[in-house]
């Protein structure tokens, strides 16, 4: 914070901000596949995620707090997903919905990314294929608990998460002659060099 407040005031401000943010998590529905249908079902009247504060599913990332990645993400989509994530203003969180977004699901192929947490920082994972709406609501409630437990009014806790949190890259699953020689960069990621 620009001005230094005494700690007991900062904790009270954090508490107020966490209550406000946790109870009004507006989702950015990044629905790529079948989990998107369950996301829509969760938003509709029978399971109603709006009861828990996710009132507005805005499709503009600039106006959202939570990115819910629902469905398998292919390699062509990864830069798009990262761009949407970077366009969301802080504070923001990510829910990885379904088996495909969390780990690639049943699709262990050349085109499907084996878990979006390799490229995006994820806060809550929801298993299922697809997860039932109740499971997604549980994930939102877990995220609310996480925000209330670790949130700060100025997002100090995000700066501390500066290490890779995804799965260990399993280099042993490729033969030496199949492994690429040069790691890619963001814009030319699919050009094999070497």
């Amino acid at each position, binding site marked *: 914070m620009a001005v230094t407040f005494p700690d007991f005031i900062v904790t009270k401000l954090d508490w107020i901000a966490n209550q406000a943010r946790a109870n009004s998590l507006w989702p950015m529905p990044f629905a790529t596949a079948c989990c998107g249908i369950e996301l829509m079902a969760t938003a509709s009247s029978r399971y109603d995620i709006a009861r828990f504060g996710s009132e507005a599913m805005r499709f503009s990332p600039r106006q959202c707090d939570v990115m819910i990645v629902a469905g398998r993400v292919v390699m062509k989509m990864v*830069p798009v997903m990262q761009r949407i994530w970077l366009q969301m203003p802080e504070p923001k969180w990510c829910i990885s919905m379904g088996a495909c977004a969390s780990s690639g699901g049943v699709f262990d192929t050349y085109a499907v990314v084996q878990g979006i947490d390799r490229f995006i*920082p994820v806060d809550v994972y929801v298993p299922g294929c697809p997860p039932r709406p109740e499971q997604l609501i549980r994930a939102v409630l877990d995220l609310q608990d996480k925000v209330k437990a670790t949130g700060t009014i100025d997002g100090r806790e*995000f700066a501390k998460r500066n290490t*890779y*949190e995804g799965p260990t890259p399993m280099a042993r699953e490729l033969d030496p002659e199949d492994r*690429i020689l040069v790691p890619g960069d963001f814009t030319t990621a*699919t050009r094999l060099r070497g």
Partner: protein
Amino acid sequence: MPTFAEALNKQFGEGKFPTQKFRDNNRVIVPAEHLLEVMGVLKSVCGFDMLSDVTAVDYLNYPGAVDRYHVVYVLTNTGTAERLIVKVPVNDPDPAVPSLTGMWIGADWIERECYDMFGIVFENHPDLRRILMPEGFASYPLRKDYPLRGRGERHNFETVLRSDS
């Protein structure tokens, strides 16, 4: 309307192109240099007015195979619901086949898909580039020598850390 066998025999001579049959699946094997003529005859004389699909088979390591690829064209007669399969053998290096976009405009994207997955070039195609895989992708995924999990291209992206954004 003549059957495809009668029309081809009349146009090109008896038994010029080998045919195969299994139940109701009829196939003709046509070399690439005769493809456009044969397709023209089938379309105009036999009434096969719809090109349903263009795909390929990779016979690498197949016992008894002679050519590496067969490009498979599936023709449909929308009047009689009859289907015919035309197979064109092609080989490495530089597998190439004439494009059918002149006769069926719908061949445009399905030939692009066949190129993307197998690397078979369609000559005189108006816009031959990848359609399913990303632009800079360097391999042809449905060939038999390409591994199912790929060669690491799917994870060849930078990670966005929580503290970056």
